[in-house]
């Protein structure tokens, strides 16, 4: 059964100040109601004053997603009562949004390129936040924190062009990545992105899932909804057209009994702000290199594989990191960053910005001049990352290598180990001469164990074979 998905994505813009006042947006580690003023508290008489930086950021996004920017856009009031909404209305954009009709290219489930149409992008303010105490501390009241009140948001609305939860996830990853390249968004901030998803099975009613606040959550919520809707249909029930809320903790969607479809927001133009001639600003907006362009450049400039380029440019910080360590051997660097480092970071739940590029370049240099084996390289990397994860200062990999004596066994030591192993295992030597191929591998394994991985297996194999051949002679 064909699945139809459209998304409404709210992203917090990372401007220094709020959308309509000078309060700082950097509130996450601070006590409640400390980043507030008459404007964002909606004290009587206070007026909104538009933060032009937020408009500039939104225009960057509109340009990057190929939208048509309006000649003139306008703010409107969306009226509804809720305690986290201090004015009793949200300043947003309604019938004259900032930009309309854009397109984003992603990979479809079958790997082919696919275009997702963007309906519109508009600017609006975030409401405050309600704090409910639950469980044992459950109180007979809720608290309101207005630190978030007035944080600039862009709402991005897609056409119903997505066909699976995985596609939706890929779209969001692409979007997030693009917004980060534009330096208008910090996806790591808690609550920085919130998604409402419209989902239906062809021929059936549409359901809106609200309140999804993570990338994984979107995929989970959609997967749950598809299963739920298919089951309903299989049982002969029609799908109710409704709004459902996603419960992140339980991974399910629940019908919200509120009569939201009956809400009348009584939109009208915000009389405290003038219409905005945004088209005129557009010429001053220049875009940085975006993910697709950077990917193409990585392949061309560094000669790395398409897959590595995609992985590396799929996260701006990772791509920046890669370009710092690519050095003389960008192919080697790509393999180590994309295949090894990423896995080690994920395992430790660490972010790339915790890794000093100079440390990693030091490791790559050791590998490149063949001073250590790949295995020793991984060991040194793990030691360094473990130190970082434990909050200690990270050692340079070359220091780790020296401390543990991980430099490649070479010269006398190398020859000695090979000779010892041959000496110690006469049975294996005999097997070798009797044509048992496994015997050489066994001897190499023993030698590797002796050197604790410090020797290159191929070199050891060659040396042991030499010894064995000489022995026979």
């Amino acid at each position: 059964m064909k699945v139809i998905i459209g998304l409404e994505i709210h992203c917090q813009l990372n401007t220094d100040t709020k959308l309509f006042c000078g309060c700082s947006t950097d509130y996450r580690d601070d006590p409640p109601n400390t980043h507030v003023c008459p404007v964002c508290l909606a004290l009587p008489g206070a007026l909104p004053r538009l933060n032009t930086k937020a408009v500039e950021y939104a225009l960057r996004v509109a340009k990057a997603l190929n939208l048509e920017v309006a000649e003139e856009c306008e703010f409107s009031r969306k009226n509804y009562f809720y305690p986290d909404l201090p004015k009793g209305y949200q300043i947003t954009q309604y019938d004259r949004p900032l930009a309309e009709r854009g397109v984003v290219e992603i990979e479809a489930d079958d790997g082919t390129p696919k275009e997702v149409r963007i309906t519109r992008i508009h600017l609006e303010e975030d409401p405050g936040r309600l704090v409910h105490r639950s469980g044992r501390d459950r109180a007979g009241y809720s608290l309101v924190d207005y630190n978030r009140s007035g944080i600039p948001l862009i709402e991005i609305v897609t056409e119903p062009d997505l066909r699976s939860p995985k596609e939706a996830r890929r779209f969001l990853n692409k979007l997030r990545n693009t917004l980060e390249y534009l330096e208008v968004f910090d996806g790591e901030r808690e609550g920085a992105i919130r998604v409402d998803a419209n989902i239906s099975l062809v021929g059936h009613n549409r359901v809106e899932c609200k309140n999804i606040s993570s990338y994984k959550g979107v995929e989970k919520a959609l997967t749950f909804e598809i299963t739920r809707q298919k089951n309903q249909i299989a049982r002969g029930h029609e799908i109710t057209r409704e709004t459902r809320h996603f419960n992140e903790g339980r991974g399910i969607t629940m019908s919200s009994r509120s009569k939201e479809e009956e809400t009348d927001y009584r939109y009208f133009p915000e009389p405290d702000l003038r219409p905005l001639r945004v088209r005129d600003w557009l010429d001053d907006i220049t875009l940085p290199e975006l993910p697709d362009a950077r990917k193409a450049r990585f392949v061309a400039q560094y000669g790395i594989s398409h897959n590595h380029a995609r992985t590396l440019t799929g996260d701006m910080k990772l791509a920046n990191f890669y370009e710092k360590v690519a050095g003389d051997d960008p192919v080697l660097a790509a393999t180590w960053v994309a295949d090894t480092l990423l896995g080690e970071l994920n395992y430790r739940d660490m972010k790339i910005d915790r890794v000093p590029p100079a440390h990693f370049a030091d490791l790559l240099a050791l590998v490149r001049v063949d001073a250590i084996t790949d295995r020793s390289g991984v060991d040194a990397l793990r030691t360094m990352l473990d130190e970082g994860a434990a909050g200690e200062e990270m050692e340079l990999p070359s220091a780790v290598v020296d401390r543990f004596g991980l430099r490649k066994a070479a010269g006398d030591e190398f020859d000695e180990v090979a000779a010892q192993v041959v000496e110690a295992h006469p049975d294996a030597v005999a097997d070798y001469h009797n044509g048992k191929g496994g015997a050489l591998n066994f001897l190499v394994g023993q030698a590797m164990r002796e050197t604790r991985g410090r020797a290159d297996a191929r070199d050891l194999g060659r040396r042991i074979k030499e010894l064995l051949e000489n022995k026979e002679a």
Partner: protein
Amino acid sequence: MAGTFHFDAEDRSNAFITRVESATFGDGRLAGIPLAVKDNISTRGMQTTCGSRILEGYIPPYDAHVVELLREEGAAIVGKTNLDEFGMGTTTENSGFGPTTNPHDPARVPGGSSGGSAAAVAAGMVPMALGTDTGGSIRCPAAFCGIVGLKPTYGRVSRYGLIAYSNSLEQIGPMGRSVADVGTLMEVICRHDARDSTSYDRGYAHAPSGEIRGMTIGIPAEYFGEGVDPAVAECVRDAIATLESAGAIVEECSIPSMEYALAAYYVTCTSEASSNLARFDGVRYGPGVGTKRSWHDEFQEFRGEHFGREVQRRVMLGTFALSAGYYGKYYAKAQVAKENVRRDFLRVLKSVDVIAGPTMPTIAFRFGEKSDPLSMYLSDVLTVPANLAGVPAISVPCGRVEGMPVGLQIIGQHFADEVVVDVAFAFEQEGPA
């Protein structure tokens, strides 16, 4: 120069909601001058109620832009004056703190909604006061109380700190005993403020001039039509004749869109008010909430209990006008009508320098005289057009009918506040006191 002003004037008219016994003041053009501020303008540290019980006890932590400017010039702010709740009225009877009476006749209203400011000036308690004018709220009480009141060009005075009733129409303006005082106060409060996105950077520095020779004055037929008391009309015609004898050229003209002005005005102001007043939910300011209920029940009851009847009526009217299915019929049409009024004024004001007529169709009403809301709304017919058009308008006393003051209204082009002040000044020099 700086010092303390002791304010001991007796308030026989209930002009003040809040008053101080002594006010400190600094140096400047207004040093030591006692000034009253309408109670819908935020004053740091001084209760600001908007004439509503819903804001009783609310003490703003910040000053409105105009109040900052008054303090910078050394004014002694002696109190906050009474008004129709949130500015919604033409008599100051709709105040949560009791009505203000007219100093000329305590059986009559002072006009509204800036009735407290007008009465305080007329009674001699203060020489000047700030009012606000959404549909005539400065000019009406100025006319009824026999003082001068200016509604500036929309955008000329910052609204930052003015508790909004109808954002797209209202302006803060000066009220005083003389045109010169009103001009002085205008010079102080007319200063650009980036916090109000609708304010223009057009300062006011102007000494009034009585020279009006050769100036053209348009007299719209609509300002002397049905509903205008003939005695008031005659008084105003005499005043216009005085201007003519001082050298002005008088021309008949017409503003046909005035027919729709009242409807456009009431739909616009109630729509905006329904949204502006949503913030009064009892969460952050106003009287404390006693019993614990769900928030949804609580805020509804809170609003029902603390908003007055006229406020509730206008909030409901505005909510209706903005509702899905009615927006096009009411709000959108009102905006078209508003634009038509603006264009009509622009057209007429291309061929004449100012428009003149009565400020109010009658003299001050007796208390209770306008008991049904509609007849009250009708009395705003001559003042609301200037708000819809956004143009400056001044009311200057021009005589008496039945012993009560009558106001001459002079309306000018956008940003020609100086011109309407000059014409008023010329009349003040020539006309009867």
